[in-house]
């Protein structure tokens, strides 16, 4: 049970080399579940190794319970880690794997037995205690690896992509179990993943990383609904957010984004966006589920008629692809919508929820929502 704080953490592997971690700044409270997510090579695993003490940091400080642990060796930080490859000791039985850390810390044998029994019961691996890791399935190895981490009751758990070696079905099962475990034990946890669904479902806080920089740190809802930049917006969400290149025009003090489906045009009011946006290359960010079906103009939302080009029924949803401003746009519709390729659909956008990005810098542009939008058919 502990708080974790990273202050200006910096990591480089050599003076001539680019920084692996740049000015990492974040803090989580006791019992929180922090997700580090990002594409491979973004520095998330390095950051985790730094927290564990397996790699030293080049600058800044790592604080656990307000104590600076930057200079401490891994064993003194009271941290346990679950590795992607599980890293079970192959020559030891499951029992010895779980007990190893306790033996090293010279606990009395009775206490070790008791702890192993507790962990085994918790993870339902009692029947596996006598086996060697090589005799276990992937899912069982995963449980044992978690058991080894749980056994010491450390201050912080670190998970390094623990589910990426499991098959899809088991991954979903274990994800729920990890969440359940965290709800029960309420131990501060840092979890590295490149899977944005794991990031969204497990985390209390999510740090999206790219190129050694935290792009955004916040709750999953903030990350999803209020992404800080184009990268975060594109990384989180499946199917991903649509990015439609747009031109802005100004009319009666209102900023309008022009959409063109080939058979119709529509001007989407964006509130009173800042000055000087006209003429800049901009991207309109719309999540697939924010495009709804409707007979425009009826309920006041701006709409556009577009031709269906591809349909992908996924079961719970029907993904429909149309072209707006020469860009493929995915719409997530109810599965019972009857539409075929070549049909025309009336689609609506909620201007309150669309986002605007600078196409060249990826920067998110603030849209003032002061003006009540309404449809402006051309």
């Amino acid at each position, binding site marked *: 049970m502990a708080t974790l704080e990273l202050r200006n953490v910096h990591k480089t592997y050599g003076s001539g080399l680019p920084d692996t971690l740049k000015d990492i700044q974040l803090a989580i409270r006791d019992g929180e579940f922090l997700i580090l997510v990002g594409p491979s090579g973004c520095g998330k695993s390095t950051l985790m190794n730094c927290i564990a003490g*397996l790699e030293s940091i080049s600058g800044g400080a790592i604080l656990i319970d307000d104590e600076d642990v930057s200079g401490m060796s891994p064993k003194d930080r009271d941290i346990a880690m679950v*590795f992607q490859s599980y890293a079970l000791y192959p*020559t030891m039985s499951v029992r010895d794997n779980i007990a190893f850390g306790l033996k090293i810390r010279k606990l009395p044998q009775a206490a070790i037995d008791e702890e192993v029994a507790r962990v085994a019961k918790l993870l339902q691996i009692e029947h596996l205690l006598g086996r060697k890791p090589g005799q276990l399935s992937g899912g069982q190895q995963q449980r044992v690896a978690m058991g080894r981490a749980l056994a010491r009751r450390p201050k912080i758990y670190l998970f390094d992509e623990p589910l990426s070696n499991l098959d899809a079905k088991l991954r979903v099962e274990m994800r729920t179990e990890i969440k359940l475990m965290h709800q029960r034990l309420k131990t501060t946890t840092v979890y590295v993943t490149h899977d944005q669904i794991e990031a969204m479902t497990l985390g209390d806080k999510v740090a999206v990383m790219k190129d050694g920089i935290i792009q955004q740190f916040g709750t999953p809802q903030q990350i999803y609904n209020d992404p800080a930049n184009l990268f975060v917006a594109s990384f989180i969400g499946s199917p991903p957010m649509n990015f439609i290149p747009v031109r802005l025009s100004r009319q009666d003090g209102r900023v309008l984004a022009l959409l063109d489906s080939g058979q119709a045009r529509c001007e989407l009011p964006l509130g009173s966006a800042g000055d000087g946006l006209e003429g800049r290359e901009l991207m309109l960010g719309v999540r697939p589920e924010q495009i709804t079906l409707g007979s425009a103009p009826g309920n006041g939302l701006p709409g556009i008629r577009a031709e269906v080009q591809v349909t992908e029924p996924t079961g719970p949803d029907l993904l429909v692809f149309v072209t707006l401003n020469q860009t493929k746009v995915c719409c997530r519709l109810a599965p019972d919508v009857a539409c075929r390729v070549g049909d025309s659909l009336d689609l609506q956008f909620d201007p309150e929820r669309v986002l605007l990005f600078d196409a060249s810098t990826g920067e998110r542009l603030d849209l003032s929502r002061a003006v009540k939008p309404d449809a402006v058919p051309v």
Partner: protein
Amino acid sequence: MTSLNAKPALNLSRLAIYAVLLLAVLVYLVPLVVMLLTSFKTPEDISTGNLLSWPVQFTGSGWSKAWATVSGYFVNSILITVPAVLISTSIGALNGYVLSMWRFRGSQLFFGLLLFGCFLPFQTVLLPASFTLGKLGLASTTTGLVLVHVVYGLAFTTLFFRNYYVSIPDALVKAARLDGAGFFTIFGRIILPMSTPIIMVCLIWQFTQIWNDFLFGVVFSSGDSQPITVALNNLVNTSTGAKEYNVDMAAAMIAGLPTLLVYVVAGKYFVRGLTAGAVKG
């Protein structure tokens, strides 16, 4: 449909293959057979019969005389080989562990330089080694010879262990460090128990090298401390009296038996160890 495991038909080409294989076996075994037969013959039998003829009368006198002559040197060889093998294997294991899992700045260069040791011919190190042993006061001692073998063998043992250990995932060491284990605990409790195949390879390799070594033995030892290879040479090259081929052969067999024994006992690990790491387990 024919079963896939059906025995292949015994046709002409297959017969030819077997014939060639049989011939190869004979070529390899004939010297051994000649040695064995000769060692059990009497000197008269040897001078009258031919090489491959069956002994007229089996006698162990050649063996007992050979043993009486070389037994002291046999013990010397054991006293040289056993410590040299154990020490070079132990240090090699530790070196390999450091060079694969506790890399330091320049460790790759260090390993590269160490590899040169594998390519140095014995002859090039004779003079420097002899000079060093003299300075250390170990000239012509068993300890000195052990030291030379250990140093010369380190390049090989380090290479073996390092290459075996690079295939062990780093995460294992990381996990152990987080569990609180230190450098030697990780080595002793986790890494060494996984090393049986490569330890066997190293033991066989070093045992064969050191037991069979002649050059270091003849240069760095003298008189009663000589290993069996040197003693065998002295015995066979002796120019006084009649040639006792049966004794020579028996002594040669005695000199060769230990390496044979090591292969029989640990041989199954040899191929396994050499190919370990080639396929992800």
